[in-house]
């Protein structure tokens, strides 16, 4: 093996998310966010549920030694319910899409910020985005937690932004 080959192989090694964070840590971060933002009595039950056909995602990107995205996905109705719970007495009588985008994005921001803090740094955090979830680029670079909030399914994925490296 030449030095160049050795150097390439060494630099090609990058950690996948399951080497850096585990599902209980993500679950714990999400629970803390729910308790503080959504309500003290709001719990996330660690059980999978079938997401409805009409879903919405919110996410933030983490760029650093590990680069990827923290994605929350749930049904649109559940996202609206989360918005009402988060705003509490400050919720408008009629929620607008903008309210849901704002509130669901802020939850992703808080969860993502704390996931970032659990990863090797320094890293940068993007502003939140809301819409159709970014595609999973590398199934091996994915850590996903499925929970139920008020009986409704919600998933939290921490997924790498880069495709899998070729196998030598």
């Amino acid at each position: 093996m030449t030095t160049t080959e050795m150097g390439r192989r060494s630099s090609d090694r990058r950690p996948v998310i399951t080497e850096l964070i585990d599902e209980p840590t993500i679950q714990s971060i999400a629970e803390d966010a729910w308790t503080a933002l959504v309500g003290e009595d709001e719990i996330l039950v660690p059980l999978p549920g079938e997401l409805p056909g009409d879903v919405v995602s919110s996410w933030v990107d983490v760029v650093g030694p590990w680069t990827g995205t923290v994605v929350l996905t749930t049904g649109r109705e559940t996202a609206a319910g989360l918005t009402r719970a988060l705003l509490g007495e400050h919720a408008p009588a009629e929620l607008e899409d903008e309210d849901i985008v704002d509130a669901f994005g802020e939850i992703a921001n808080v969860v993502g910020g704390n996931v970032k803090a659990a990863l090797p740094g320094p890293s940068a955090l993007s502003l939140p985005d809301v819409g159709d979830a970014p595609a999973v680029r590398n199934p091996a670079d994915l850590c996903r937690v499925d929970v139920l909030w008020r009986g409704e399914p919600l998933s939290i994925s921490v997924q790498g932004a880069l495709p899998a490296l070729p196998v030598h």
Partner: protein
Amino acid sequence: MRALVIDDSRAMRRIVSGTLEKLGFEVEQAGDGREGLDALERGYIPDLVTVDWNMPVMDGLQFVSAVRSNPGYRSMTIMMVTSESEHTQIVRALAAGAHEYVIKPFTADALRDKLALLGLLPQEVSL
């Protein structure tokens, strides 16, 4: 007492403002650091500024630096309220001139306790 709440999330602005109003503050809101500076330049000089870190147009750290470079704003207490929880980020914010740092998610009680430590409200105030 007067407060200025700066956050690009309307939801978070409502939550922080609601908590501060319950504690007796008169509150104005701004959607980013530039809007926050605009409020100051219009003459709204608060006792307390809470400011998010990651915002479009002007982020929280740029806002803190801009405020600290103006002697006319020296009396204001600045609290970063952000999901940036890495130690290095906290150090950067405090070095730039923030007085206190609150990591999202936070509870209303935690915010009240921080304000009490800063001498911005009596500790017996309850929410």
